[in-house]
């Protein structure tokens, strides 16, 4: 028994679990999951980053918990069990934010609670954690959370910069002094449709770089 090859903790396979969701398996741009929150919380950078972190933590920890007890979960009630785990994690994160980052928590408002319904979570638990060991599941959770977060942060960066002229609340555009030559903030950037168009542009960019993502007709 002792001769069983133990996989190194950061084997190529495990690393791939982390890097794939950042690029060609991205939960938002390729799997098109978690779009709703991506539209809602990307007006400013700060809430977007907090949201990305929250989702990453919730998905990673839930993945570990479900993976650890995957053999004891009766098949028929597995969705309920998964939901209980996710809900517990979300409540913990929500309470933590309320205690230590009340402003951001207020900005995110209902969307922290709505992490429960984020498709990425159920997707990862169903597709990965139910069939894998805790450690790979943890890495998979981190990777998917980061893949989700990266898109959120990119979209939020442009929306805050072009829509409000600030970055993390710092008035970048004003310091650059381009208001004086007639530049104005783009009001549409603050509206949700622009987030959708932003995500669309990222998908466009990604697909033109990586042709294998384009569906075969």
């Amino acid at each position, binding site marked *: 028994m002792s001769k069983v090859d133990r996989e190194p903790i950061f084997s190529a396979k495990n690393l791939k679990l982390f890097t794939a969701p950042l690029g060609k398996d991205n939960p938002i741009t390729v799997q098109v999951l978690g779009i709703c929150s991506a539209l809602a919380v990307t007006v400013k950078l700060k809430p977007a980053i907090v949201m990305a972190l929250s989702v990453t933590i919730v998905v990673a920890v839930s993945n570990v918990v479900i993976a650890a007890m995957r053999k004891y979960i009766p098949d028929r009630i597995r969705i309920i069990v998964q939901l209980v785990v996710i809900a517990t994690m979300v409540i913990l994160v929500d309470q933590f934010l309320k205690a230590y980052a009340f402003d951001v928590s207020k900005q995110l408002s209902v969307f922290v609670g709505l992490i429960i319904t984020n498709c990425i979570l159920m997707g990862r638990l169903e597709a990965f954690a139910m069939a894998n060991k805790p450690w790979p599941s943890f890495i998979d959770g981190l990777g998917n959370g980061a893949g989700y977060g990266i898109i959120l942060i990119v979209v939020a960066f442009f929306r805050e910069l072009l829509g409000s002229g600030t970055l993390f609340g710092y008035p970048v555009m004003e310091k650059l002094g381009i208001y004086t030559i*007639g530049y*104005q903030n*783009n*009001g*549409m*950037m603050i*509206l949700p449709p622009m987030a959708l*168009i932003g995500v*669309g542009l990222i998908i*466009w960019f990604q697909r033109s770089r990586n042709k294998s993502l384009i569906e075969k007709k």
Partner: protein
Amino acid sequence: MNSLRKKIDKIKPNFQEGGKFEKLRSVFEGLESFLFVSDRVTFKGSHVRDSIDLKRTMTVVIVALLPALLFGAYNVGLQHFRSIGADAGIFHMFWFGFLKILPLIIVSYSVGLGIEFIAAQIRGHEINEGFLVTGLLIPLIMPVEIPLWMLALATAFAVIIGKEVFGGTGMNVFNPALVARAFLFFSYPAWMTGDKVWIEGLAKGQHVVDGFSGATPLALCAAGETTKIPSFMDMFIGTIPGSIGETSTLAILIGAAILIITGIGSWKIIVSVFAGGLGMGLLFNAFSVNTYMELPAYYHFVMGGFAFGAVFMATDPVSGSQTEKGKWIYGFMIGVMSILIRVINPAYPEGVMLAILLMNVFAPLIDYFIIQSSIKKRLKRAKIATNINS
């Protein structure tokens, strides 16, 4: 002309497949067919062909737009001199306005055509003439004071997000010119609404004569001041503040006549938009809860961009309904929605833009149901026929 033809023929091989500038083929072809009729013929199967192609269609629309454009130029001058209380001759006014509009047209065409040319190169398509009309429509639905960089940005947005993303000319879901306007409307509302932007000089804080207001009739109505709007005749002729090409219903009707006679614009859509607007206006008249609702229904035809939208925007053959019955529904709903948005929602004094964009989305759905119902009808008829035979 002949020597030009010879010159073009001489350099042509360079641009054909295998030539030196093969990559620029579509640019060359676009320019060549702009000057001369394309010599390409169909070579596969049999096709019924008409001498009228996309380019000729577009040229007719441009001609139909000319009255609105010329009057728009005159009106820009007129409004400016009225606001400063000065007097000027009719040609002076026209020339003043023309010089104001010209940069807008140049920016719109150069940005839009630039993107179209590049997109055609990348994809190896021919250059389509679709932008010829869009490029003129965009300045005509803008306030005269719009900064040029905003116009350039909106044009780029309309061509890329409104058109190229969907596959270029003929594939767009929305009317590109209205996409440009909607983009500006939501991005820079300060430049698209209010009482300053419609008249040259006001936004820069120029001195105006006492009692002069640059508010459009629609803005006055939305504010509940329906008694202050200009007379019906003034609004019909178009000597009122507003977007450049939309003020004169008379000039637009001349354009409409050109479109209908040549068969390029669908008279069904134009008539049904007006019918829908009249119906909704009469409905509001019946309720008459506030002064705006009491406004005679036919006033809506001459205010704002209703007529312009009905004649030049709703009739866009790409984004509108394709089926003949569908055109009636499509147009009627545009009319209804325009007046509904105008009267009920004071945040959007002009409802035509949003109404047309909304119905652009529904046009394929309308077509789908019309086609399905006619298939069903024919199937039924076929069944009856077979029953009788058997």
